[in-house]
Every structure is written in C-alpha cells, then in structure tokens.
C-alpha cells in the first residue's frame, strides 16, 4: 500500500529520519500551546529522530521529547526526501 504524499499520518507512523510538515495536533488547547511555544508551530518542518518512548523530533535546532500518548495525536505530512 502506498500513501499519497499529502495524506497526514500520525507522528508515530513516520519513519525514523524522515522529514515532515506539521499538519495538526489533536490535543487540548493547553498542550497545543505548549507544542507551539516549543517551536512546533503551524506547518513547521520537523525531523523524526527517534520513535518509541519518548519519541524525539527536531524542529530547527530544538530537540523535543514527546511521550507516545501525545505523539499519537500529532499529524504530519511526510515530505519527499531531500526537502528540509
């Protein structure tokens, strides 16, 4: 099965090392604000460094550890290899 490039997938399903664009976080407003203030703003580009507990993403120079329970509700659109 191949995914159309524009289909948002859960952060948990992203491949390690892949770069993606943030689509949305289906979380309570307080958690959303926390993510945004850490740099996970609308449509930002992020790179998945590690899956599991915690899942680690890098946004620009910031590394963020995210509990699996949160990562599941964050949806991203994978970008083609080579994009940053």
């Amino acid at each position: 099965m191949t995914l159309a490039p524009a289909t948002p997938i859960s952060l948990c399903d992203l491949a390690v090392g892949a770069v993606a664009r943030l689509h949305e976080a289906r979380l309570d407003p307080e958690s959303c604000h926390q993510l945004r203030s850490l740099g996970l703003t609308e449509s930002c580009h992020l790179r998945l460094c590690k899956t599991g507990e915690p899942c680690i993403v890098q946004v620009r120079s910031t590394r963020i550890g995210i509990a699996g329970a949160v990562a599941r509700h964050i949806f991203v659109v994978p970008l083609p290899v080579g994009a940053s």
Partner: protein
Amino acid sequence: MSASSVALLGNPNTGKTTLFNRLCGARAKTSNFPGTTTAMRVGRSHVGAEIIEVIDLPGLYSLQGESPEAAIVRGVLRGDAESRPGAVIALVDASNLFRNLILVAELLTFDEPVIVALNMVDIAERTGLRLGVPTLSRRLGVPVVPMVASKGIGLDGLRTVIGALSSGATAQVRPADLPAPGASLEQFTTWIDDVLNDAYPGGAPAAALDARTERIDRVLTHPLSGTLVFMAAMGALFWTLFELATVPMDLIELTFGYLGSGVSALLPAGAIRDLLIDGVIGGIAGTVVFLPQICLLFFMISLLEDTGYLARAAFVNDRIFRRFGLPGQAFVPLLTAHACALPAIMSTRLIPDRRDRLATIMVAPFMSCSARLPVYILLTGLLFADRPALAGLAFAGCYLLGSAAAFFSAWLFGKTALKGTPRPMVLELPTYKRPSLSNALLTAKDQGQAFLQTAGTVIVAICVVMWWLSAYPKVGAPVEAVELRQAADMSAAPAVADDLRARADVIQAKAEQSGSFAGIMGRTIQPVFQPLGYDWQLTVGVLTSFLAREVFVSTMSVIVGGGAEAEPDEGVRQRIRTMTRDDGTLVFTRATAASALVFFVLAMQCLPTLAVTRKETGKVKYAVVQLAYMSGLAYVTALVVYQSMRAAGIS
C-alpha cells in the same frame, strides 16, 4: 520606573542561573513569588558605582498561554511602576537562536527596556554559526551583548550596557515591523525568520543535526540501556542521601550533644536548663539535622539538571507513573522520600505542572523514610520474635505497603480532589553540557538557607512544644523511687548503691512519662485506639511519635523502664515484648504488633513534614488534608488488620 532593578528572562537551559550567579555571587535569596509556589531568586550586583537588584524570572518559552509561569512574568512586566524592573535582560542561547528569539519578540511588545544577552556563543562558534551582532541589534532595536556566562566572558560588556540604560539615556524605539501585541506565535515566527535571514551573513543556516547529542540520546532513551543508566544515576542519588548524608548528620548530632552538655555544666539544674537543653537546643538540632540531606539532594539535582540528563530521565518512568496520575519527574521526590520526606517535598520543584506537583507532595510521605527504620526493626521483631526470616519479610512488606499506598493515593487524588487530565510529557531535550560545580554549590546553599528561614523556625517551635508536652507537668518522685534512693544512701557498698539509684531513676522516668501532658493525653485518647488493640502505653508511644517517628522506640523504652536510648539493648527489647496491660495481659500480641506496624507505615507522624508541605504548597489546607488523609488511612488499615487477625484467631 526604577532603574535600580533588572529582571532575567529566558527559555529554560539558556544559562539564566549561571548568569545570575555570575552577577550576584552568593548574595542571593530564594523565596516564592508572592502567592505562588514558583521559586524566585533575588540578588544584588555592582554596576559601576551603583548596586542594582537582579530578579531571576522563571524560565519559559512563551509569554502567552495559561501556564502559571507566563502569568507571573506578565504580572511582573505589567506591574505598577514601583515594582516593575527598570530593564529586562533577555537571555538567549546563540546555538538555538531562532526559538529563543520568539520569546524576545514577545517581550518587545511590552514597554520595558530590553537588553539581549547572547549567551553560549562558544557553542554557536563551535558549530560554525556566524552572526552579525550589530545587524541583529539594529533589527531588534535593542542592545545585543555576546557572552559566555559559564566563563564570565562578556559580563563587563553587559554591566556597561545596564549602566547606560539605568543612567536614563535614550528611550528604546521598537522596530516598525514588529508584530502587534497579542500576535500569534506564527506571526512572531515569520518576523524572526526575516530578522535572522538578515543577521546571518548569507542567510539563516539550515538546522544542523547534532551528531553527538543524537548518539548519546540513542543510549539514554533506549528502553534497556536508558533504564540501566537511570537506575545507576538514581542509585548514586540514593546512596548520597542514605549513606553519605549520615556523616554530616552524625556530626551535627554530636556537636549539639556537646553543646547540650556544655550548657548543662554551666547552668544549675531546673526548668530553665531543661528548656534550653532539651527544648531549644534539641529543637534546633532536630531542624539542622535535615540540612545535609536537603543540600546534598539539591547539589545532585543541579548537576543532573545542568547536564541535560534530567529531561531524558523524566521520560523513563512517565508511562508507568501517568497511570497513577503522577508525572515522570516524580521519581526523584519519591525516591528521596525513602530517605526523608522533607527534601523530597522540596524537590518537587522539578515538576512543572502544578497539579502534578501537588499530587506528588501529597503522597511522597507514604514512602518509608529512614526515621521509620528503627520502628520497623522493633515492631517486626515483636511480630515474629522467634522467626527472623518472617520478620525480614514483614520488614520488606512495610516498604512495599508504603509505596503501594503512595501510588494508590495518587490515583485516588487524580480521580477526586486533584482532577484534571494528566498531561503526558512534552519536554525540550537540551544539548548535553558539562555541569557547573559552582551553580550546584550555590543551589545547595540557597535551598538550605531557604529551608532554615521558612520551615526551620516552625520546626524549632514544634520541637519545643512537643518537648514541653512530654516533660510537663513535673510529677514528684514516686514513693518507690524515694525509698530506693534512701536505701542507696544507707548502703555501704557503692556498687549496690549505684544500682539502687539507677532503678530509682528508671521508676521516676516512667512516672514522669505517664504524668506528663503526653501521658495524660495518651490515657484520654486511648479509647480511640482501643479498636486497634492499643493500650494507653502504646497510645502514648504513638502520640509522642508525632514529633518524629523514631521517638517511638525511646518512648517505649522509657515506659518499660529502660533508658531513653534510640537503640535499646536485648534486655529492653525483651521487656517491651513482655510488657503488660493494666489487666495483666501482653501489650504486644501478634495482632497488636501487626496493627501498630501498619499504622506506622501509613500514618502522617511527622510535624516537620507538614510544615514543609504548608510552605511548598502555600496553603495550610494541604498540610491538614495530608495529615487527615494519611492518618485516617493508617487508622482504617490498622483497624482492618487487627480485627481480621483477631477474627482469624491470631492474637
């Protein structure tokens, strides 16, 4: 506008504490922001000929949002003219400039003069980032001072700029293209992107991957190796608190012991001497003795935090702890509570979320602290006098019961009083850095000082009152003791006379014990403890333990006519085992011993802990709830244990 104070603002891990310590040295005080549980440090620093006040604001990522930290900082920035700082030093991490500048952009929408302290330029240069500082300064419309706080580089430049600002030179003009107050984070992001494209010659660099951090993270957050490292780190922490801390603690006890005997030799016997030695000196000793564990704990935490490891460690337990409504960071307090609940409760400052923090404070004292140890030894020995293996099992069972009660209660609080969705963890993982020894030493000093100033006085007062309750009213020497002493005076053999006098002292001590307010209270309250199987003597023991649990052992020892030693010898233990109720039956049947043991595991019998809970939560209410809940749970559980053992025919 008072130019004589500046506030430090910045993201967490940007070197705020380091810069603060460089500016103020050891002349700082830790307290809480008025009406909150957020720690505030205030210090003084020389700027030219002037002395200015420096306030360390809580580290945060954004001035918007509902978090208590953001509210506090907004309050300070919007405060009335008197309390408002004359300038804000915005500390930014040059190696992670983009994210750090978002906060600066938000700050620029306020009126305060701003100085940007561009910290960690050493790290930024190592990764090859070259920044046009004058351009950045021009685009932001504020002075930008490059520095390396950990080495003290750039400090003079910062002082000069502060001096120029406070001498009231020109007012700062905000950039025309700065987003309006209340703009979204996305708007600030766009603006900062534009600023940085300008400030970095050749455009903003693409975010580089830090290979070293990546490699270390792979090990430290790995399910297996991460857990192993975590256990090693926590083992070291535990050893420090349990073993290393006993050295200074013994020294403190020894010193105050000498002090007591010194004063005792100077003063005539009487009420004043007793008050000074047993009340005041004893009370101060009982407070100061907590210092080594508090200082050592904060020393270790500061080191762990500075390296960046603590953020990783928080994730190790988060998944399990969340099920009980506790955050992953609760591990340090809960582990520490096995040594002592006081430093444990103070260390809940590591927990950012207020609800999470309260839950941890409420349940931490359930963990079996070292003061319960002598009580466990005594009571498990009474429970299984003839079967040491079973006594050992019961001993381990006490620790398990304590932890189980803590997690159960956290879960219960989460479902009831402390409702709220437990938010799983999202944390910045800072790059790994070498910890700063001087930061750690200053943190330890500050926390020790804060403990003595706020909780310390209350604890001394509690100790004096509890001493008074157990020493007064004075009863005359019982007839039996008087007769023994007369016999001793007439005895020709000195050995016999000494023996008689010793026996007289024992009888008098027991009479004083039962005639004191504590003794009277024990008799009065005994019916309450009747269903748990306690007679008045055991009730007195339980009551006096509210000063400190280990007092139980010496109280029981005095009741059976031993000395007031913390470690009774076999003879005294035998006497406690065979001590009788007023009707002649044994006090410590198996059911009573089990019920007392359970009571000691669960009850809140430590007034100093309550003093610290009150201080850390800012409300008496929480201390009262803690006392009522823990003691209530202890009572009910002990009741169930006693009555079901009786029903099962075990007595």
